[in-house]
Each structure stands twice: as C-alpha cells, then as structure tokens.
C-alpha cells in the first residue's frame, strides 16, 4: 500500500510538471536566475573575505621600545605583549636589525655616514588575531610599560573591515530577497496547478483523502522543479566562475588577487544550491496548497 502511494505521488507530481509545461519552465528559469545571483554574490563575498584575510595577515602594529631600555629589558617585554588580548604574535627586532634593514632598503650607504644603530629603537612587530580590534590593541600596547610609541595603520584596517561588512551585508540581503522571490514564483506555479485541479482536490477531500495525501504530489512537483533548477544553476555558476577567474582575471592584470578555486567551494556550493532549490520547491508548494486543505 505504501509503495502504491509513493508511486502515485511521484507519478502525479511528474504529470503535473508536464501538464503545466510553460509554468514549470518559467519556475526553473527563475530558480536558476536567483541561484546564479545568490551564488555569485556569495562567491564574491567569500573572495573578498579571502583577500582581506590575506591582507590582514600582512597588516601589523609596530611597537617601539623606550630607548633607555637595555637589550635585555626590551626583550623582557615580549611575554607581556603576547599576553595582551587579540595579539597573535610579537616579533622582537633589535635596533641593529632595524638599522640594517633600513639601510639595506634605502640603499646608498654614503647617506648614512656618521650614523649607527643607536639612532634606531628596539621594536616589536605585533600581529593581530582580529584586525577590526586594532585600535583597542593599539591602546593596550601603549599601556605596556617600556613601550614608548605605537604605530598602527588604523585607516587601512578600518577600510578592510568596512569593505567586508558591506559585501557581507549586501550578499546576505540579496540572498534573502532572492530566496523570497523564488519562493513566490514557485508558490504561484504550484498555485496555478492547484487552481486547475481544485475540483479534483475537492473530490479528494469529499471521499476522505487526508491532507498529506493531497499535499504530497504538489510537494513532489515543487521538489523536482527546485532540484532541476538547483542543478542547472550549479553547472552554470561553475562555468561562469571558471570563465571569470581563469580567463578574465588572469588576462587583465588582476592576477595578484587571491581567488578561491571553484573546486575548493564546489561541494558547499552544491549543497547550498540543493538546499535552496529544495527549500524553495517544497515551501513554495506547501504555501500554494495550504488554502485548499482547510476544509
């Protein structure tokens, strides 16, 4: 009996897709379009995140040690600095190392004649865990005894954080809006089917069909449309992403950007597309059929 019913649900669901071919086609197109936009923005957000992560790891605070401190005293501060919240690592650079680095960077040794490492300060290069808390860490470093000055590029860190927040917010908003739009279209497609079959549904109710028995074929219909849309959307997203990353970016001088390879996100994207397709299909169908099951 269970097998009978299962076959019935599948058969009715598939029949309905072909009976309302145009609306089914339109639903799939809308799901594909929405998923492509959702997917593209999600991938953009992931890539922006990746670029910012890379830049973050290169962004550092320079903490200069009081020049009256001896080498030993200066090195002794390291533990204190690394104990501060949000500090990932502190690398000590002695005044000699700093001087060598400076002269090597700026060339012409003649320009530095008469000067030696004593003009430089011992320092720490401090790497952070979270770039958005740079200002607070800068202040904490200033309060460490023995630290004379702290240099941090707050404007850069704020810029990174702002870009990430904007991209994430826009992506989330778009994903939410497009999900609702897809839901609406799917619901209307199934609603059209239910409207055409309202007499049949009324007869089913009259002879004692349960609500779930009436509901399932419509859910199957939505589920199939959602899954087909998700699969097509996924294949197209893959193609577009590869085209953009491999052909356009590589050939346009933007190759310094860190781009996430599609293979790295293929499974999560497939899962997300599948989930959205299924969700839109099933929830849309349930919304459409709801009113007919009240009696």
């Amino acid at each position: 009996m269970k097998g009978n019913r299962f076959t019935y649900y599948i058969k009715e669901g598939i029949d309905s897709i072909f009976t309302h071919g145009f609306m089914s086609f339109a639903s799939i197109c809308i799901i594909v379009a929405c998923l492509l936009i959702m997917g593209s923005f999600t991938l953009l957000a992931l890539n922006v995140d990746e670029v910012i992560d890379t830049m973050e790891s290169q962004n550092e605070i320079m903490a200069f040690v009081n020049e009256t401190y001896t080498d030993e005293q200066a090195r002794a501060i390291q533990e204190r600095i690394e104990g501060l919240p949000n500090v990932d690592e502190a690398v000590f650079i002695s005044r000699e190392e700093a001087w060598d680095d400076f002269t090597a960077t700026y060339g012409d040794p003649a320009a530095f004649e008469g000067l030696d490492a004593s003009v430089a300060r011992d320092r720490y290069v401090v790497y952070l865990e979270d770039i958005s808390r740079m200002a607070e860490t800068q202040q904490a470093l200033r309060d460490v005894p023995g630290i004379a000055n702290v240099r941090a590029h707050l404007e850069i860190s704020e810029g990174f954080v702002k870009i990430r927040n904007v991209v994430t917010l826009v992506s989330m908003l778009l994903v939410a809006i497009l999900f609702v739009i897809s839901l609406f279209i799917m619901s209307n497609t199934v609603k059209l089917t239910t409207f055409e079959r309202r007499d049949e549904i009324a007869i089913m109710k009259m002879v004692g069909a349960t609500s779930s028995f009436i509901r399932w074929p419509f859910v199957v219909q939505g589920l199939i449309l959602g899954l087909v849309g998700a699969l097509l959307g996924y294949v197209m997203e893959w193609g577009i992403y590869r085209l953009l990353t491999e052909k356009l970016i590589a050939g346009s001088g933007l190759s310094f950007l860190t781009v996430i390879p599609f293979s790295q996100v293929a499974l999560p994207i497939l899962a997300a597309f599948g989930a959205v397709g299924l969700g839109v299909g099933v929830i849309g169908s349930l919304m459409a059929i709801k009113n007919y099951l009240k009696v």
Partner: protein
Amino acid sequence: MVQFTDVFKSYENGAKALRGVSFTIRDGEFAFLVGPSGSGKTTIIKLLTGEIAPTDGKVLVNDYDLGTIKFSRMPYMRRTLGVVFQDYRLIEDKSVYENVAFAMRVVGASNKEIRRRVPYVLELVGLDKRTKRKPQELSGGEQQRVAIARALVNNPRLIIADEPTGNLDPARSLEIMMLLQKINELGTTVLVVTHEKELVESFSKRVIAIDGGKIISDGMGGYYNYER
C-alpha cells in the same frame, strides 16, 4: 446513523440557517430531506459532510461528533459517507473506471482491491459496459450513475444525495431513485435531499421537511406540506 440534537447554525453575516433542528436517521433507513430554497437543506448537508461546524447543538454522524471532531480525524469520518451531487462532479479527463477507482486510490486502497471492487460497483449501477468512456461521452443519467458508483465504492455507511435528479428528465430521475433504493436495500443508509415533490411522493419513504431553518414535518408516506 445520523443524529441532530437541537442544532443551530448562524453564518458570519448573521444569517440564521438552522434554528433548533432535531432528527435521527437510523442505520439502514431511507429518508428524504425536502424544503424550498433557503430553507436550510444545504446547511444540513454541509454539517453532515463536515464542511462547517454547528453553532450550537450536537451533530452525530456514524459515531463521529462533528462539533468536537479533530481536523485530522475528518477524512476518516468522510470515508463513512458517500456524497452524490446534482452536478455530478466527475473528473473530466478520467474514464468512468478511473473516476471510481480514484475514490479508492485516495483512501489508500491497493491495486488488487481496486481491481476487485470497481467492476462490481460499476455493474451494480449498470455501467459495466462503459468503463472506458469519459464523462462527456455519457448522458446526464449515466454521469449521475458514475457519481453514485464513486460514492458507493468505499462501502460507506451513509449515502447523501444532494438533488441527485436536479439535472435529469423524469424517466432518468426515476431510474436514479430506483438505484438509490436498491443500494438502500443492500444495507446502506440513504438520505436524499430534494425539492421535487412528485418524485418524493412516488416513493413511500420517510420525509423530513424543513423550512425557515426548522423541521416542519417528519413522517412516512411522502407527506410534506410546504409550497413556495
């Protein structure tokens, strides 16, 4: 069995459709429910099929209390009923056989049960030679027979026929009534809702007459005294 006990029904627009209706139809009985338009007949049918709930009073149908029944139990109550409508309400793109089998399929009957039961019922209503026809290829009387077969196929305890002869000529009407009488003789309770006086009077059955939302007479022999 059907039991109405002091049933009142008011609609949201304030219309009072039933005003203290009480009657009982025992198992195996054949009864007519008669009355003019707007008398409350349709409300009684809607109450019997669970489409609406009483405002006050008690409606018992085949051991289900329709005032307190849970929504999830309603399909199971409806499986004890067979309903026949004036406009047949057949599915146009399904054959005669499929229309009847459909009623069994939606309550979860197996293919084996369907293959056994549907031909029997179609033979009972005299349509065993027209199983592959579509509803539009049949006469009005034949379409109503399909509707009766569909109502009968799940072996209900009660058949409710709402104006079953409303779209038929007198000869076909009589045939349908004879068929309903035959079904009743096989043990099914039958309630026929109609306003066709001649038809009612040609059968010596119990007649419940309603007008203005109240029972105005209830007795045997085709007697009822409303005229509009």
